[in-house]
């Protein structure tokens, strides 16, 4: 899976968690919380969906790695490769 694919995976998850957010113009290098109305409970849901849909585990101490789409892609790429996705 490419980094672009992974960003798409994360955006799809956010659109499910927060259907009222406008995701058409999310800047990949900017923290998600600065652009969208997301709180710590929403980030927990991103983590839970990654586990449910893709079998990927994100330990609590790594939640900060999910701050922006770019950092999500960097952090998750080896994990997606690891599960052979």
């Amino acid at each position, binding site marked *: 899976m490419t980094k672009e694919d992974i960003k798409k995976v994360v955006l799809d998850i956010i659109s*499910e*968690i*927060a*259907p*009222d957010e406008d995701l058409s113009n999310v800047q990949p290098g900017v923290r998600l919380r600065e652009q969208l*109305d997301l*709180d710590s*409970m*929403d980030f*927990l*849901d991103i983590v*839970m969906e990654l*586990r*449910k849909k893709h079998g990927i*585990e994100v330990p*609590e101490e790594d939640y900060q790695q999910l701050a922006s789409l770019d950092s999500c892609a960097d952090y998750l790429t080896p994990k997606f490769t690891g599960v052979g996705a």
Partner: protein
Amino acid sequence: MDVSEGGNLYDTIVIGCGMAGLAAGIRLAMFGQRVMILEKHNAPGGLNSFYFQGGRKFDVGLHAVTNFVEGGRGTPLGTLLRQLRLPWDAFKLCPQIGSRIAFPGMDLRFNNSIETLESEVARVFPKDIDAFRKLRKVILEHDALNLESKVQSAREIVGRIIQNPLLQDMLFCPLMYYGSARERDMDFDQFATLWKAIFEEGFARPLEGVRVIIRALLERYRSLGGTRRMKCGVKRILAKNETAHGVELETGEVLEAKQVISTAGWAETKLLCGSQRTDPDILENTGSLSFGETISFLDTKPAELGCGETIIFFNDSDQFHYGKAENPFDLRSGVICFPNNYDYGRSGDLPEGILRVTGIASYDHWTRFNADSYEAQKRNWFPRIIKSAIRFLPGIDWETIEKRTVYQDMFTPRTIEKFTSHLGGAVYGAPRKAKDGRTELSNVFLAGTDQGFLGIVGAMLSGISIANKHVLMSGR
């Protein structure tokens, strides 16, 4: 999950099918857990349930859903709808018309816009308006949802900011009535939570009452594969080496689970784990505040009788007394609710007028009466309660209410204990809360009233927070 074999094995058993239990169940089922909710009664909803009588629908508990905002993000209501993945209109909430705090010769009106209350305080207490604004700032900056915070006296904190004892009492009155399990005082976290829920956000109600909310939760839970059993009381929580492995039902059947979330209450859960009702910690942490309520169905709308307000919190004394009742009913203060007076708009209208009067009642008195004298006492107190309340409704008299009443009912602390299983009929549960939800058993967690978030929205957030923190985040 690894207990998918069927039979009586679950990831999580939730005790209680009220708002907190359903919300916790939804969160866990959403992420693939096998969840079983067990409810002692035949109706879901817990403290906020409903019943039918005389061809009419009654709400239990609910006067108003607090925390109402229209589409506001970052609010408790917004958070819980998003966490449960329910749409904004899932609960069909309609805003209140307007409410009032009524003390002798003095009224403070408020509605779903804090500016109304602020201008009322400026009008009635001009010398104290700066202190009021300062208190408001302190509350808005306070993180009341922190699960790890310590108990602080709200009376002390508010008293340091607002010197006028009358204004203090008027502000405490609605907040205490809508959630304090403590006599005379509140934990500051709870004070701040209720302030935001009632004054900053506001009241709303679905036209058809609390059943609309319960139905939305049940449907969501069912669609995620969650299971429940009604009329299914738990006899005890089974544990070995301080770890629970399941529950034994009153029928003797055993259900196994990796963890248990109990919404039964702090003391009530301890009893399920083997404590005795006479144990000192159980006695000491059983709530002593119970309530009674009269419900009158009228052949006319309250507005036609000159009563256009939604909720009136009243007190007739120099000081507001919020504590255990010494008589069957404490007539000095109470809450009047007209469920008709919400802005239902195109949703329709309630078919009849409804007047509800709620007040502090004595559990000891109402549980001591035998069956005959219990009914006689209800008949005796019913008119006294309404007469006490209508002192704060100018232009209406007892004869009119009596003449226009087509049906009536009343509940007492005895009714509350029977249907909620809360010891002492204590609606708001134990005075000392377990905010982090932990118990003496490593995998039994408390949610709901005795975890300490308040109101219907608070109860649902409690279920969500405890499921998130102790089950989902810890990867159980």
